[in-house]
């Protein structure tokens, strides 16, 4: 067992798979020599050579299209889009070409591709580096969406993503890359895509979150504990497929829930989670399910991002609201 931060855990997953399967390749902007702007792929080109880990010209659509063409020929590309805002340049290749390959060919071809991108707020980054664009992806049929919240999950989910025969949009929260270290097993293990994780047990209210917001929820839960409220926290880990069964099981116990997301409030993942709770667990609810989310504005410049992002205090307030309903 080694101690790794999330960035090292993701790198370790890619190293394991590069070693195991010669069809696995990594490419993108600046991923080779220096290992990417965040050093997630650091050392991999040195270890596996330029044929396996390489820099491309600066063109995101081509990075996506290259991955699609290679996938058709049986390779398993890990394509890095340097910052989340740059996926807009690659949306056709990611969300149409890769996501529809299996359907368009009636199963003859597929896109065994991992599209990696850093995202998420709180690090005072430049404009369009920090948006939470997972909502675009979950509206797109044919692509899985994975967001880890800790090193152990990140490695296990990344190995699953690389081995998946369908495209996976793997979003890595910037604020979690170096936030903390945790035990990560050596070698290979997988965390199943589509299974949520109960990270804290409780009986009074369920807090559903993913990515950085899991940690914000943990802080809120500690505060609620002081008030005698026992919060259960579910880390979704994957948004497509969404593990509604774990959510429903928790609500059967707590009868109350809130959903926390960093993304803008309207029509996002939280809205979908609430819709599915309505479909499957409405008779277990004692109160409406509330959202804690960013406002429906563009993601702000760095000066006010700390106010813009959901805080433990806002989660606590929402929890009190559903409990006192």
């Amino acid at each position: 067992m080694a101690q790794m931060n999330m960035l090292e855990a993701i790198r370790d997953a890619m190293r394991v798979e590069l070693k195991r399967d010669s069809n696995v390749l990594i490419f993108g902007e600046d991923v080779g020599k220096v290992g990417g702007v965040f050093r997630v792929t650091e050392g991999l080109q040195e270890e596996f050579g330029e044929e396996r880990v390489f820099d491309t010209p600066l063109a995101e659509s081509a990075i996506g299209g290259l991955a699609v063409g290679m996938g058709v020929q049986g390779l398993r590309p890990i394509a890095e889009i340097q910052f989340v805002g740059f996926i807009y340049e690659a949306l056709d290749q990611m969300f149409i070409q890769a996501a529809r390959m299996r359907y368009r060919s009636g199963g003859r071809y597929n896109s065994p591709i991992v599209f990696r991108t850093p995202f998420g707020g709180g690090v005072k980054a430049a404009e369009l580096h920090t948006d939470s664009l997972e909502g675009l992806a979950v509206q797109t049929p044919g692509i899985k969406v994975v967001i880890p919240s800790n090193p152990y999950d990140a490695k296990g989910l990344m190995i699953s993503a690389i081995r998946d025969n369908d495209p996976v949009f793997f979003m890595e929260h910037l604020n979690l890359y170096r936030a903390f270290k945790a035990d990560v097993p050596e070698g290979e293990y997988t965390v199943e895509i589509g299974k949520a994780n109960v990270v804290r047990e409780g009986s009074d209210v369920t807090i559903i979150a993913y990515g950085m917001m899991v940690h914000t929820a943990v802080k809120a839960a500690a505060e609620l504990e002081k008030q005698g409220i026992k919060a259960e926290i579910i880390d979704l880990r994957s948004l497509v497929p969404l593990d509604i069964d774990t959510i429903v099981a928790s609500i059967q116990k707590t009868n109350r829930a809130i959903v926390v997301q960093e993304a803008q409030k309207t029509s996002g993942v939280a809205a979908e989670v609430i819709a599915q709770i309505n479909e499957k667990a409405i008779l277990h609810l004692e109160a409406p399910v509330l959202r804690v989310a960013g406002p429906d504005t563009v993601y702000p410049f760095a000066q006010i991002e700390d106010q813009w992002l959901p805080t433990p205090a806002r989660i606590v307030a929402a929890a009190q609201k559903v409990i006192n309903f």
Partner: protein
Amino acid sequence: MSKLPYEVQTEPVTPLSVLSLDGDVINPDLMPDLTDEQLKEIMYRMVFTRTWDERAVNLGRQGRLGFYAPVSGQEASMVGSEYALNKDDFICPGYRDMPQLVWHGLPLYQAFLYSRGHQHGGQIPEDVHVLMPQIIIGAQILHATGVAMAFKKKGEKRVAITYTGDGGSSEGDFYEGLNFAGVFKLPVIYAVQNNGYAITTPFEKQTAALSIAHKAVAAGIKGVQVDGMDVLAVIKAVRDAAELGRNGEGATLIEMLTYRFRPHSMADDATKYRTKDEEAEWALKDPLIRFGKFLEKKGLWTVEDTNRVKEEAKAAVNENIKKAEAVEKMTVAGLIDTMFETTPQHLEEQKADFQ
């Protein structure tokens, strides 16, 4: 003070031809090496394709085909470019490029199924090396680039070819693809069938470049413009490009000057943006007439041969449209099962709404 010398300006190009309009060899140096049997086969395929196209237009009017992009006029660039490939070379087509897919091995009834909006149309047989027709203009250019990179990485002596039109050459994906191919020296052929119009928009509103072939210069790959109504010139250009690719000498952009005799699609009216004079001018360059004359002078082809092939093609179209119509309809449940390798729970549950 003198003005800056703009050194990167290049000279206009002249399209390469092998045959004159009368079917005489005017450029023997460029004559591809082909046996009499091969020459006859090429003519067979062009006549077959023309007849299929005529029949398809009628089938569209009868409602027996759906979206269909006519090909008449472009037989030399389509049939010739495919003929120059090996069977294991890979084709990434645009939406009009069904003839290349069929001559590369896609069963004709599947081409009809694609047009009829049936998923089986895209279920390419295992031994046929093509992608389905691409609707997003230019997206396939990047797929061919990726396929070529896979060939190179695996050390396979195969090339990828992709097709787009004059309109497609304005897309960002076009420039990105060419640029990647230049940097990585990939075995890929970018075939641009410049038929003068992107639906209704004429070529002069598409680019101020001297030609589309010139765009190869910026990407550092080879570029050539050929007479796309001359099947022998097309074959020569594609064969040479494929050889370069196989020998590790990188990518080629081939601009093929051609013309679609019919409208863009069955919903289009070409009389609104093209003149009768222009159409008449291009009709004189008809690839079937020109190549037919060449073969007739060599004693390899007669009007009877053309008539025989037309009958064969009509029979094949009839047989294949019937076969396509007999294929069981798609179901929503079946569609759901092609979203992912293993259908996730939420999609399994959604099937219930469609039973």
